[in-house]
């Protein structure tokens, strides 16, 4: 494969191209934006989880000096609903509120303080309605509350349509897989195991909270800056929710955004846009809406509470013969990206092992919480939490080593997954071996004190990347030889700009410093599905490669005339074009441009050297009845993680003694950045979601909406440098740029089961829900010993 070849820039740990701007404090984020005459926004939010809006009185707020606009959810401000797959949401609630924090009104004023005072002066009369928080209750045929009475009449996405459930009014998506016959498989199996596993609601805790700045220019056109990871998704949401034609809206994402991890639905941007438009007369002043940390933690998208039921049949020899699952995303009041998460949580279990008989029902269910949706792993950390805990339960009963049991069943190149898709580029077994070796699997280590118990655990995971999908790239060769990329991929910190520069540097044989990436701007940068699903390296990478070829074709056509050579015989390096094998027959790129009187440069024809390309991967939408598809995803990233833990039986505290991850990313374009993704996935989000993090609510009110109460790992919660190991496994993908797939989302999909399996090994207690807090450990130890 081509991964064996030597490259100049691909596979090299180039420094992040944005690191200097960030290290020196020069990097500007949306939160840093200040425009002349800018107003500040605040939101009035519902205190009830479910209520009818009887009346809203904004008269006092409007009279407060310094207030420039007050909006409520009416026909003028919120003419249409929007949503990723189900158009179920207005920018401001109309008629009823569905969660604590649902926005009902907003104010733009001269200062944040005035805006807040005005918000406090808005009087809203509500009539409370019964609310539902429990997933099983909401799932019922006659639930205690129906969130969207008109759900069946809502608009849905044509390309990947959600399926509703005729009999269950709160189900916003229902997806199923039927491969062969699971029931027959259970009958034939030597053992059948049935268990339920759950995960708590958690939050992304990006360090930059959500922020939007909106401005209406003198032609009436709306420009919105934001922190969204999907500029074109935000573009659609903002134009559709106002009934504006798409060309009437411009979306700009600054070059730097303070973290994403899936949770960047453009809520703040929507409010800012509404307030910019709502001002009477001209000039309309720009409006900034930055969510406070509390607003960010208590009202923006979460990773859902998940209920995973799993039934598995195995033979004595350790062959998995049947697997049946019911996955329930206990969602919020609006589906958001959760409509797709609910479906795609099925992909991890569908592709981990070779299983002849596979049946799965996946649901997304409305409850009166805020929206739950995309979060690193997109439902698969939750579904695999169930599957990979189950695998250890099985291995123990069969008296098999958990590693051997997984190796025996792990899916491989050419195997069929549950969609009956032929698997390609499968690094699962290599990951398992590497992770096991990194923690000295099978070797017992002793704790210093008798009340400290040690154990080891392992887990296997995979993360698909979305299909259908598309990315477009534009590459411009400047007269001075600098090559500029126009892409709508958002660099949220994952380092996309850096690897794109490396790709272009490789194609043009120029230093990385001679490439620049423009920030996403829907007037300038072409379509991209979004910075999600670990799809950028693969999809945008392919688009960039194709765009480079297009630009080089133009470059060579122009140079061929000057060099009196065949264009097919030309090459470029170091901003020169030369004849292959005759480097003396060359010209500088700048020599193709003619300096003009008065100033500037021109080409004789073609205006500019601009390469452009789309990488479109249509995939095959799974059959609605069986889930069958020969191409339901772009590719699969594999991962295995292994942990050694120490449980303090006196305090219940769990210490990660060692933790290791091995990730199959196809090809590491930048190994240092791949490591960075692995570290963040395992050490911050993996450990956090397994041992610490939970959004705690009471009647829909978040009780821990500050970083003092919603704890994420600090330096002291992560193991020392020597006790964390990572391995990069490169199983090249035939369609990937330089064989590359992706990395980000695969990094935490099996952290929880690896750690929980180690806890079981240490103290013999199987935890069925995360986070596994010291309180839970102590309680379980007490129950076990009584």
């Amino acid at each position: 494969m081509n991964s064996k070849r030597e490259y100049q820039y691909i596979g090299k740990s180039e420094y992040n191209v944005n690191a200097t701007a960030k290290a020196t404090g020069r990097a500007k984020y949306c939160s840093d934006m200040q425009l002349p005459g800018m107003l500040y926004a605040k939101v009035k939010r519902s205190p009830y989880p479910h209520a009818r809006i009887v009346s809203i009185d904004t008269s006092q707020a409007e009279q407060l000096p310094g207030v420039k606009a007050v909006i409520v959810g009416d026909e003028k401000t919120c003419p249409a609903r929007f949503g990723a797959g189900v158009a179920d949401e207005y920018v401001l609630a109309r008629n009823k509120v569905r969660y604590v924090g649902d926005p009902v009104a907003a104010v733009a004023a001269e200062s944040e303080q005035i805006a807040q005072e005005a918000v406090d002066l808005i009087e809203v009369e509500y009539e409370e309605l019964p609310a539902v928080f429990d997933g099983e209750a909401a799932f019922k045929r006659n639930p205690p509350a129906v969130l969207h009475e008109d759900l069946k009449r809502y608009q849905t996405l044509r390309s990947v349509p959600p399926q509703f459930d005729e009999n269950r009014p709160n189900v916003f998506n229902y997806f199923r897989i039927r491969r062969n016959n699971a029931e027959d498989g259970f009958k034939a199996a030597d053992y059948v195991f049935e268990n339920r596993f759950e995960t708590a609601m958690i939050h992304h805790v990006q360090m930059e909270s959500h922020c939007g700045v909106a401005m209406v220019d003198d032609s009436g056109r709306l420009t919105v800056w934001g922190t969204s990871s999907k500029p074109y998704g935000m573009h659609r949401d903002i134009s559709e929710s106002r009934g504006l034609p798409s060309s009437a809206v411009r979306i700009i994402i600054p070059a730097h955004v303070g973290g994403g991890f899936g949770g960047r639905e453009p809520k703040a941007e929507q409010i800012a846009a509404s307030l910019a438009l709502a001002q009477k007369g001209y000039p309309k002043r720009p409006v900034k809406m930055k969510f406070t940390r509390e607003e960010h933690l208590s009202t923006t998208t979460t990773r859902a509470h998940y209920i995973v039921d799993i039934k598995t049949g195995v033979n004595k020899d350790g062959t998995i013969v049947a697997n049946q699952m019911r996955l329930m995303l206990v969602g919020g009041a609006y589906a958001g990206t959760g409509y797709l998460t609910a479906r795609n949580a099925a992909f991890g279990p569908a592709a981990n092992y070779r299983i002849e008989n596979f049946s799965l029902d996946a649901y997304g269910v409305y409850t009166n919480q805020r929206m739950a949706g995309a979060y690193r792993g997109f439902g698969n950390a939750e579904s695999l939490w169930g599957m990979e805990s189950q695998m250890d339960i099985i291995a123990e009963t069969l008296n098999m080593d958990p590693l051997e049991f997984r190796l025996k069943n792990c899916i491989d190149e050419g195997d069929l997954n549950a969609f009956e898709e032929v698997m390609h580029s499968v690094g699962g077994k290599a990951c398992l071996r590497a992770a096991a070796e990194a923690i000295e699997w099978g070797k017992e280590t002793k704790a210093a004190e008798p009340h400290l118990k040690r154990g080891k655990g392992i887990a296997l995971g995979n993360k698909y990347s979305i299909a259908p999908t598309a990315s477009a790239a534009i590459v411009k060769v400047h007269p001075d030889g600098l090559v500029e990329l126009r892409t709508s991929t958002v660099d949220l910190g994952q380092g996309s700009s850096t690897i794109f520069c490396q790709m272009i540097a490789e194609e043009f044989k120029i230093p990385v410093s001679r490439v620049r990436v423009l920030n996403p701007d829907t007037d300038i940068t072409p379509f991209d599905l979004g910075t999600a699903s670990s799809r950028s390296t693969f999809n945008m990478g392919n688009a960039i490669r194709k765009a480079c070829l297009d630009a080089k074709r133009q470059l060579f056509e122009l140079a061929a005339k000057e060099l009196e050579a065949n264009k097919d015989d030309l090459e470029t390096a170091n901003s020169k074009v030369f004849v292959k094998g005759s480097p003396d027959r060359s010209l500088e790129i700048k020599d193709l441009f003619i300096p003009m009187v008065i100033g500037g440069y021109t080409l004789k024809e073609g205006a500019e050297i601009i390469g452009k390309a789309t990488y479109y991967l249509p995939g095959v939408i799974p059959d609605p009845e069986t889930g069958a598809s020969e191409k339901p995803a772009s590719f699969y990233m594999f991962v295995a993680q292994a942990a050694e833990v120490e449980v303090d039986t006196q305090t219940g505290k769990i210490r990660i003694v060692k933790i290791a991850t091995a990730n199959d990313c196809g090809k590491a374009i930048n190994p240092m950045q791949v490591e960075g993704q692995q570290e963040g996935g395992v050490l911050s989000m993996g450990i956090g979601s397994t041992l610490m993090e939970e959004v705690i609510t009471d009647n829909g009110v978040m009780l821990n909406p500050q970083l003092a109460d919603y704890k994420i790992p600090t330096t002291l919660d992560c193991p020392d440098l020597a006790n964390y190991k990572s391995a990069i496994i490169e199983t090249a993908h035939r369609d990937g740029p330089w064989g590359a797939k992706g990395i980000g989302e695969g990094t935490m999909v099996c952290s929880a089961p690896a750690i929980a399996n180690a806890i079981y090994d240490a103290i013999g207690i199987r935890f069925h829900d995360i986070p596994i807090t010291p309180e839970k450990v102590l309680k379980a130890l007490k129950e076990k010993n009584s």
Partner: protein
Amino acid sequence: METLDLTINGEAVEALIDPATTLQQFLHDDLGMTGTKEGCGAGLCGCCTVMVDGMAVKSCLVLALQVRGKTVQTIEGLAPEEILDPVQQAFIENGAIQCGYCSAGMIMSSKAYLQENPHPSESQVRHALSGNLCRCTGYHKIVKAVLSAGEK
């Protein structure tokens, strides 16, 4: 409004401010020194860390008027002549920066600590940085970077 005199990154600054302004707001909003980020406004994340008379301080917890007459150093003052501070250099070279929103505060905390203890152990670095949150990196390369800066 109140008058405020102080030194920021070696320059004397005089301003008329609302007494309720925090140091973070004064630097970020009034002076446009946007390197000092607001992460939580409650002293819980460390994104807004600056040095006041050489000590690491969370600038969202301090009123600007409380630093009257004092010397404040922000991230912008760490590399005034385009020559990066060894801590900044170490963060870049070790890949310790991802989204970058915590980086300025992280670097200022590290700098303040290394001035006090130039050759720290890993455990000392972890304790010194435990008040600075980062969601991207798992702190692994940050700790590495600070240790490598400490070796120089």
